[in-house]
């Protein structure tokens, strides 16, 4: 019995090491890879309802609506990631996490403008505060 317990220790330790989690969240069909979640629990709480994008001069501008699918108020943090044509993130250190509190069943609109004309794609990253 003790030997079995000893075998479990490294497995549990490995599990603890891989606790940082990221997965894609629920989003409209054309934007399946747009919402990134830092916590598996958020997939039952947050969903991306709609995405609008247009060119503001040379820059890509987006408007995203996220929805709190629960009846409770939650504190989140989010950031917009901007990717160039090669899929590399543009100015990752200049896009800080922003706080938001979503009430139960609330829609919340997030607007953003690309930091440079090189941006071709975007992703919204959501995490618990």
């Amino acid at each position, binding site marked *: 019995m003790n030997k079995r317990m000893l075998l479990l220790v490294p497995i549990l330790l490995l599990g603890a090491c891989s606790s940082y989690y990221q997965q894609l969240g629920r989003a409209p069909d054309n934007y399946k890879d747009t919402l990134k979640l830092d916590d598996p629990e958020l997939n039952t709480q947050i969903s991306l309802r709609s995405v609008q994008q247009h060119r*503001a*001069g040379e820059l890509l501008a987006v408007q995203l609506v996220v929805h709190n699918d629960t009846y409770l108020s939650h504190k989140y943090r989010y950031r917009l990631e901007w990717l160039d044509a090669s899929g590399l993130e543009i100015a990752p*250190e200049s896009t*800080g996490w922003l706080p938001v509190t979503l009430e139960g069943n609330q829609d919340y609109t997030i607007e953003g403008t690309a930091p*440079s*004309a090189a941006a071709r794609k975007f992703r919204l990253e959501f995490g618990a505060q």
Partner: protein
Amino acid sequence: MKRSALALTLLALAVGGLSACTTVKYGDAQSVETVNTDFGSTDLHLIASKLTDSLLASPFTAQITANGARPVVYVNTVSNKTDEHIDTESITDTISTKLLQSGLYRFVDPTQVNAVRAQLNFQNSDPLADAGTAIHFGQMTGAQYMLYGNLAGIDKQSGDSQDVYYKFTLRLLDLKTGLIDWQDEKEIRKTKSRGLFGM
């Protein structure tokens, strides 16, 4: 029995002492900061990202940057009308960094005029300098627009709860016409309330 109790006490003290040691670690400079209700790094990010996005996506920016034009902007001070000591230059620095990195705007910095003059004097009149590579006087570009604004705040306290409100207003003024061509503001509200057991 007494010896084992003493040993346990000493062990607990040693563990407690070790855990009380000071530790230094690096954190994520971009993470959400909620240490207290004072103006903090997250407020700076909120203001800078909202106002930069607003200016870059405005029809006015699209109009004046059409055909590759890059307007020249001078950043004036942002007056701090709150009761708090806030480095407003840090906010305008972040905004001007984002605008410059967008490739749509260029900036001049009049605060460095004395240093520039000293360097040009050296290049143009010091026997050590190669006159062929000297930059001549009178070629600096003048700003077309001035970026300025103000930060206001209202702080209310009642018992153990506190409500802090900040409003940052930013304007872009055409130096030729004196017209304000763009203006936007960002509001932030932060509340603090003490828990049931004063935590």
